[in-house]
């Protein structure tokens, strides 16, 4: 019997860092099992074993990738029951939270979203109201469901690797009837930069870039960073909406967030205030972003960013 069950939707060819983080947290709660919805390669199975997963559940019947949320939640409910786990961990993506939501009703289990830390007794830590409060919360039900934000623990393999057993779980057939179907999927062009939600460093631009993300992108590339943006910049069409950081965009908690030409409205802060170090470059000394900056530069981003980029290149040789 497992104590914790980690849901990894589509593991791909190699596990994402956020999945390794979930496995690391799960191990701190006890014996860990994993449920995947997509295909499981031998390499990933090995990696799961290295992180201490004793059992991997796989779906049989029904291609879960064709449906949105409902059938995945039904499958995960069956896997949870089979595993005996009292804690289910998912990533904090929109779909992760929604699977958590439907799963909770099936299992009569409390859900806590946006978790940044979990204690051994299941107490979850989170940050709410755009980062203005930190709270601790707990599920009062036999099973607890936690969706966990990326970048809050260091992934750590188990002291002893195991070779996980696999078990198939029948996808409840009635869960497919009437579920929302995905009828088309278009991949977005890949940038070659790190994934925004998981990046260690983010360089973000706002209305102040005035249509030219060049200096932001060049600094990002010198630092190996992801590129982010405010809603003003994405609404203007200067950069894709996937780059938007904030309440209605991506939430990031990187080691370093460099904000350039962004005023620091509450909805922008909601998405980046948990960054370890915040640097702000803004022409206006009254900008609210300076209230949360560890290092603030009152200046023109078109001077400061290219100079910093050149200096980094020089030092890195």
């Amino acid at each position: 019997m497992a104590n914790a069950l980690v849901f990894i939707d589509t593991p791909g060819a190699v596990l994402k860092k956020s999945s390794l983080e979930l496995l690391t947290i799960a191990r701190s709660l006890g014996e860990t099992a994993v449920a995947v919805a997509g295909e499981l390669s031998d390499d990933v199975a090995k990696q799961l074993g290295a992180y201490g997963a004793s059992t991997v559940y796989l779906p049989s019947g029904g291609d879960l990738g064709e449906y949105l949320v409902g059938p995945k939640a039904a499958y995960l409910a069956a896997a949870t029951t089979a595993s005996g786990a009292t804690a289910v961990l998912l990533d904090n993506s929109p779909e992760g939270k929604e699977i958590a939501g439907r799963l909770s009703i099936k299992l009569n289990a409390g859900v806590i979203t946006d978790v940044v830390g979990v204690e051994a007794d299941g107490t979850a830590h989170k940050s709410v109201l755009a980062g203005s409060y930190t709270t601790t919360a707990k599920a009062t039900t036999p099973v607890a469901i936690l969706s966990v934000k990326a970048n809050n623990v260091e992934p750590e393999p188990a002291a002893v690797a195991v070779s996980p057993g696999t078990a198939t779980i029948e996808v409840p057939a009635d869960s497919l009837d009437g579920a929302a179907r995905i009828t088309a999927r278009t991949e977005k062009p890949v940038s070659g930069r790190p994934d925004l939600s998981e990046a260690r460093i983010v360089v973000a631009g706002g209305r102040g870039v005035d249509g030219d993300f060049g200096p932001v992108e060049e600094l990002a590339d010198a630092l190996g960073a992801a590129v982010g943006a405010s809603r003003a910049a994405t609404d203007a069409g200067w950069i894709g909406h996937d780059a938007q950081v904030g309440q209605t965009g991506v939430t990031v908690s990187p080691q370093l967030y460099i904000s350039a030409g962004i005023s620091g409205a509450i909805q922008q802060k909601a998405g980046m205030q948990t960054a370890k170090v915040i640097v702000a470059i803004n022409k206006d000394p009254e900008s609210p972003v300076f209230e949360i900056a560890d290092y603030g530069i009152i200046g023109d981003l078109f001077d400061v960013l290219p100079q910093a980029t050149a200096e980094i290149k020089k030092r890195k040789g």
Partner: protein
Amino acid sequence: MEETLKIVVLVKHVPDAQFDRHINGPGNTTDRAESILSELDEYALEAALQLAEERGGPKAGNEVIALTMGPASAVNAVKKSLQIGASSGVHLSDDALAGSDAAATSLALAAAVRHLSADGRPVDLVLTGMASTDGETSLVPAQLAERLSYPQLTFASSLEVSGSTVVGRRDAGSFSETVEAQLPAVVSVTDQINEPRYPNFKGILAAKKKKIATLTLADVGLDPSQVGHSGSWTVVESADPRPPRTAGTIITDEGDAGIKLVDFLAAQKLL
């Protein structure tokens, strides 16, 4: 023309994010003074109004019902929705609801949706915001869909209904999906879907004549123990204001700020 629709829009009354917000209520609940209609629910209302208008509006028999659950003051979210253009409003209000978590909230809202379907004309579509701007869990739409056994098409950035099929686009990290479901369905929409309209003078006058029904738990067939703190599956054990970030170093660019920035990053071991 397309068949007419009966749409319920979930509107939440939330503390205005322009002011400082506080957690100081019983059971670590949020202070609800200075509250407004959640901005993210305005997109759901706009989407509902557009669907109704494409089908000839209220005159043709389309209904856009704004539903809120919350204390007495929450009726203001419904009033604002009526001014913007909803055809009628429903306020589910009961002292026992205070402190409900997402699971208990979805239970109460599901009961209210069933109640609204019981007049002989079933609800076709429940539209919601992508998240409440206070709780921000995005759990309620999924939990509601599960409780009602409806398909969910969530985080839609476009939306069309033809016949009994609803189609929307959903943008996930590295790809964009087209999702299709049959009515009745729960659809949550993002702030990318439309530009919400503002109430105009005519709308404000018209709203005064529109009906707001107040429902109690008994009206929707629930027992007080099923909601509020006793019906919730989670507890908030502590809530602490985050200490303000310690004031950092602020410099004014004198021509070398880019280099000073790199010095700072090097000192923080971030290069």
